[in-house]
Every structure is written in C-alpha cells, then in structure tokens.
C-alpha cells in the first residue's frame, strides 16, 4: 500500500519536472522565435536599417544558397581547422610552459612579472608582428589563435599546479617519489579538471584569435566572409557568418563541457 503511494507520488513528481522542463524549453523557443520575428519585422518595417541588420529570412536564404553551392562548408571547415590547431597549440603550449614554471621555482619567480605583462597585453594588436614573423598565410592565423590562449593557459594551469594539496605530494614522498613522479602521479592528474575547464575558455579565445587572424590575412574562412561582407557592404553575409561562428563555438564549448562531465564522472567524483 505504502509503496504503491510512494510510486504514485514519485510519478507525480517526475511529471511535475517534465512539465517544468517543457515550460523552459517552450519559453526558450518562444524567445528565439520572437526574436527572429521581431528582427524580421523591424527590418521589413525599417525600424532598423535592413542594410545593416539584414533580416532572418534573407540570412536564411543566403545560408541555403551557400550550403548548396558548397562554399559555406569550405569556409567553415577551414576556420574549424584553424581553430582546432590554435586551440590545441595554445592548450598544449600553455600546459608545457606551466610545467616548466612548476619545475623550477627560480624560473617561475623570474618570469612572473613578464607573464603578467604578456597576459595584460592586448594581443589582437600584435597582428602585424605576427604577419611579419609567420608570413601572410594560414600560419599567422593559427599563431594568433595560439597567442591569444597560451598565456592565460600558462597562468591558470601553473596556478592549479601550485594549488595541488601538498598532502597528495606528501603521500608520494613517503614512498620516495622523485620530482618527476610527483608531477606525473599527483600534480598533473589533480589538475586535469582545471586544465579541461581552461580548455573551455581556450575554445572561445581560439575562435576570437582565428577570426581576428582571418581579418588580417585570409582568402577563405568565416572571418574572411565577414571581412569580405564588410568590404562589399553585404551585411547579411556578415550576419550569417556571425551566426555560424556563434553556433559552432557554442557546440565546441558544450562538447568540452560534456567531456569534462564524462571525465569527472569516470573519476567517481
């Protein structure tokens, strides 16, 4: 009897939750729909300048056109490849630099003020120097993406290395562990969560870097589409690229978040 009633109550509770979820989803969709309708209407009624803001229907048409002629796929895959490269280089390079700083206390003390300055430097302004060094090509774009994320990765990951509970190291030291073993068995695995969450930030930075890089020097890619759109005052192309970028970046972010959840659940905490 009692068990029966608990089950009923549980079902009720679950129904309640599902309803709530549906309400959230519904509101979200309504918001999106309203936004696009408002945008379309405002543009059509010329409350906002359709030349600059374009309108969803036109962007949609352009999207279909560019999908069917295959050009969007080309631009997107180039940008994606650049982003992935910049992201990986930035993350790996930053982690490596963090390791070196962790390894040598002297080294880290010496570099501390330089890291602050490098971090504070608005790296988007370094474009010309990057072009001079890496030439006007895809290397520069990847370098920009790398540059944008490597310093902050170094700082955050090094900070995480330092924050590792000394007692984990103590456990290893009681077995006579070497510094390398300390790093391998305690410091690095303890920091995986931080490293992964830094990666979430890095995805965003790599995107910004690639877009800025493509602004500077590119023949193809979503950033190039934006710049070219500006050049010939085709703002719907700009909007289309922006939307594609935002969606892709969000997907990448969410994937890393999923990876994070997966890894953390696998660790059992």
């Amino acid at each position, binding site marked *: 009897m009692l068990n029966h009633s608990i089950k009923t109550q549980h079902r009720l509770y679950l129904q309640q939750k599902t309803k709530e979820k549906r309400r959230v989803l519904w509101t979200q969709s309504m918001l999106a729909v309203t936004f696009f309708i408002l945008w379309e209407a405002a543009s059509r009624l010329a409350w906002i300048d359709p030349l600059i803001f374009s309108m969803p229907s036109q962007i949609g048409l352009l999207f279909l056109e560019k999908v069917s002629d295959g050009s969007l796929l080309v631009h997107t895959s180039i940008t994606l490849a650049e982003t992935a490269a910049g992201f990986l280089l930035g993350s790996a390079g930053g982690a490596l630099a963090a390791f070196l700083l962790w390894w040598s206390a002297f080294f880290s003390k010496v570099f501390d003020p330089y890291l602050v300055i490098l971090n504070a430097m608005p790296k988007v302004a370094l474009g010309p120097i990057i072009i001079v060094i890496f030439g006007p090509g895809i290397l520069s774009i990847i370098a920009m993406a790398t540059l944008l994320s490597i310093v902050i990765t170094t700082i955050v990951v090094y900070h995480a290395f330092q924050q590792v509970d000394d007692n*984990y190291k103590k456990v290893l030291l009681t*077995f006579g562990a070497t510094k390398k*073993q300390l790093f391998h*068995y305690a410091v690095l*695995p303890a920091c995986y969560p931080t490293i992964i969450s830094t990666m979430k930030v890095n995805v965003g930075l790599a995107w910004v870097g690639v877009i800025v890089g493509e602004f500077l020097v590119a023949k193809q890619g979503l950033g190039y589409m934006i710049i070219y759109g500006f050049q010939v005052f085709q703002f719907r192309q700009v909007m289309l690229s922006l939307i594609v970028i935002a969606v892709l970046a969000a997907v990448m972010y969410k994937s890393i978040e999923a990876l994070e959840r997966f890894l953390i659940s696998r*660790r059992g905490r």
Partner: protein
Amino acid sequence: MLALQEIEKIYFTDEHAVRAVTDITLTVKNGEFVSFIGPSGCGKTTLLSIIAGLLEPTSGTIFMNNHKMEGYSKETGYMLQQDYLFPWLTIRQNVELGLVITGLHTPETSSRTMQLLEQLGLGDKADVFPAELSGGMRQRAALVRMLAPEPSLLLLDEPFSALDYQTKLKLEDLVSITLKNQHKTAVLVTHDLSEAIAMSDRIFLFESNPGTIHHTFDVPEMLRSLSPFETRNHPSFHSYFQKIWEELENVESQYQDST
C-alpha cells in the same frame, strides 16, 4: 629499533624563527607501539615528518636498527590524518601506488597487496573509485597503501581523527590487530588521550614552545595485551585516563587558554 638523538627543528619565516621541536631523544623497540600526544602545535607532525625523512632536522640524528637514517627510507610508512586516496585512481591503483613508485611492483607484490585488501574487508572494492567509499573504508584503503611496500616502521599522524566515533573504535581494533600480526613498529600521533591509551605500549606527552617531551607513560601491562576496544572498557582504564588527563591539562593550561 628506532632511536632519535637530540632532534631539533627550527622553522624559519620572514618574521620569526620557530623552534618547533628541540632536544628530542627517545627510542622505540622493534614491534613496539608508541603514541605522541600533546597540545596543538607542539611539533608532533614535525617530528613524524623528520622520522619519515620528509623533513631534515636542523640538528640531531636518527638511527634505525643502528643505521643512520637520512632522507627517505624504505623502512618507513606514513599515514596522514585524512586518507588522501587519489580520487582519480581506483582503490587497486591507489594501494599499489607505493609499489609503483618504489619500483617494487611485481605480480607477486601486487597479489599480496590484494590479499591484504581482502583481509581488511575491501576485496570487492578494488575497482571502484575512492569517492564511492565511506570514510572508514577509505582510511582502511590508505592503511593498505601504506603497508603494501612492507615498511617495518609505521608513522600514523592522527589517522582516526576524521572518523566518527563508532568507525574509529572499529578501525582502532583493526589497525592494532593488523600491526600486531605483522609485528610492525608504530608511532601514532593523536589528540585523543583514550585512543593513545587504548592502542599503545608507551605514551610520550609533549609540551610546546618549544616542543619537547614532557613525560613518558608506560601503559600498564594489563591494558597493553588487550585490544583497543577492550582496553577502553577495562575497569582500570578510567583511573589511568584520569591520571594522564590531569598531566595533559597541566601542559595545555601552561601555554594555552583556549579550548
């Protein structure tokens, strides 16, 4: 046999030089179980770290079976207040860590460790992560980890203090029996006087500022032979507790007025 001779440790900070422990001379016989008790900050952890070779003494020497000890030694095992099992490793990986680090990891040592894990009631938990274990189970796993490379001298820094009372009582018995069986020498640091009495053969009462041995108590033979749980329930336990408690009160009130 473990012998400390005139151990002194001074910590330096920018403002002060703190004499954490000074003039510590003591010996522990093989197979003996001794406890260090004393007020917070009297240097118990410091001393244990020195014995374990984690910390260099400012002066003084340590002998283990008449050999001078310097730095890390395979003879010592260390257990911390919390388990510090690595959350990203399974229990099996955790307990075999010491073997891996010391390079002793062979199928043989591995299976021996698994056996020990089984003895301590964790046989079925080898492949789960620490987060799924209760506090007591985790501390038992930490015990196995310490014992795996077969140290002969065990250093226990308040290993039970984070556990709830019932769990603690059970674990005290388990540790005591396990160590007795394996004929290990052990040094236990604790804040809990009744635990010290229940578990050890000898109790060193420390005082602080600087940390020195204030007094040494030999636990009556009668209590020594009992398991910790039995000791606590022995009629003579409380009078003995009372006696050391007063001494402890003295030591504490001398330097502190806080609870």
